[in-house]
């Protein structure tokens, strides 16, 4: 059991309150996922040609400013560095592959949680309310965000096993459910040079999408292919630079609710998380049909 929430602003009205809305939704899903929580937020686009990175270090008081200076000297100019609890968000004037290779060689203790121009990912062990407070989710302004609360069923409770999982530049995945063919699929994807940080099943789904997208598939095509190749039950929410997509498995094992007003679209595992949103009582509410891809994007 886990909880998924997503909030997409159709107009600028709720953009300053994106984090506050998402936090309230996330905390409602505490009893579906008390082990860990995480958020992917799309905000503050970085400079063109540069890379925005969310990095994680388990070391308390990690010296991010030295890492930032070293990156400036060896890889590309770091124009901003913001530390939030165990995570730091940096804008680096370099291609992601160059930053990634340099970090792997010189700072293997640091994990890359997300990369792109808009996305930031923050995730940690602990109750969703505590995690939201630690990262100050309610401060975030932005266009859209996804969140996840995890009740672990098949692999360890660590920061790395938490959701959202990065699936490529500005892409992420949150998952409610469990996959049964993830070990075989992970081996297949590893042969295709997809790297995994954990033994988690959801990370395989994210790696699968990464692989399909790297083969030139559109997000909808990658999700269509996932219906055939992923065995198990799931509700996925996938974050993109422009918006997000929702997919339930074809036999609809896992719940999901969608809601829409003139100003926003929200998705959640349960209606409780939508009830806390401003205007929820007048929202159009429906259950996404199994095996159908729903997506929203800013033009």
């Amino acid at each position: 059991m886990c909880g998924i929430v997503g909030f997409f602003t159709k107009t600028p009205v709720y953009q300053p309150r994106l984090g506050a809305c998402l936090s309230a939704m996330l905390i409602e899903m505490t009893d579906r996922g008390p082990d860990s929580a995480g958020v992917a937020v799309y905000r503050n686009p970085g400079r063109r040609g540069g890379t925005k990175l969310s990095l994680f270090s388990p070391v308390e008081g990690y010296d991010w400013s030295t890492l930032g200076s070293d990156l400036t000297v060896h890889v590309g100019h770091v124009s901003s560095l913001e530390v939030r609890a165990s995570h730091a968000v940096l804008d680096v004037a370099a291609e992601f592959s160059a930053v990634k290779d340099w970090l792997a060689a010189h700072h293997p203790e640091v994990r890359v949680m997300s990369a792109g121009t808009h996305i930031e990912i923050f995730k940690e062990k602990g109750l969703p309310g505590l995690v939201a407070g630690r990262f100050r989710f309610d401060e975030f302004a932005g266009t859209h965000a996804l969140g996840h609360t995890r009740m672990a069923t098949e692999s360890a409770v660590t920061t790395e096993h938490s959701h959202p999982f990065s699936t490529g530049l500005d892409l992420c995945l949150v998952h409610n459910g469990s996959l049964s063919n993830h070990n075989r699929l992970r081996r297949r994807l590893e042969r295709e040079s997809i790297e995994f940080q954990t033994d988690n099943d959801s990370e395989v789904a994210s790696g699968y999408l990464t692989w399909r997208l790297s083969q030139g598939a559109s997000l909808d095509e990658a999700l269509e292919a996932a219906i055939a190749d992923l065995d198990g039950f799931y509700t996925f929410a996938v974050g993109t630079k422009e918006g997000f997509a929702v997919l339930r498995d074809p036999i609809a094992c896992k719940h999901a609710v969608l809601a829409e007003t003139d100003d926003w679209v929200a998705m959640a595992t349960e209606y409780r998380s939508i009830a806390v949103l401003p205007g929820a009582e007048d929202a159009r509410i429906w259950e996404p049909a199994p095996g159908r891809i729903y997506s929203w994007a800013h033009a």
Partner: protein
Amino acid sequence: MIDLDLSQLNLRSVNERLQATLPGANEQSYRVLHPNGCHALAVGLTQPIEVKVEGHVGFYCAGMNQAASVEVAGHAGPGLAENMMSGEVRISGNASQSAGASGHGGLLVVEGDAASRCGISMKGIDIVVGGSIGHFGAFMAQSGRLVVCGDAGAGLGDSIYEATVFVRGEVEGLGADCVEKEMTPDHLKALAALLGQAGMDAKAASFRRYGSARKLYNFDIDHAGAY
């Protein structure tokens, strides 16, 4: 009518209040406000009281209902009126999956659509859906009636026992051992009465009837090689 406001009271105290109503007590009707998708609201009611819920409810609303009449002005999450014994549950919006699951008796009316597995393992309940249902409606349904005024998804009546299914619209596909059956005058009469009881404006003659071909009841020696 007594108002119980879930923005002021906690769920357990509201359920306890509803469950504790004694036969012959002065107040037999309640209005529940601000449910906000809470789970297991108005469950385990054993007296013929009236409960009106204003707003959307979460999982397992009106579960195990016995004798009470529960009306929801809104949508319901999974497991609506699960294992209902008697009484009536009516919802003005849509119901998520497994509405009326394993219900033994009473009437469940979903005025909107019901999602997958509506009436799964039903054991005598009557379910009337004003809209359409998702896949695997009446899965392993043992007895009772499932009436669908709209369309039915794939796998309707899979492994059905002696329940009866009536569908007015399109059936995407029938599940294992479910077949269309003749609509006799007795069926038409009974269906018309049930539609009337549910307050559905639909003609019984516009429905088709489905039930068990009874081919899965016994082991077939011709299939021995498959095991």
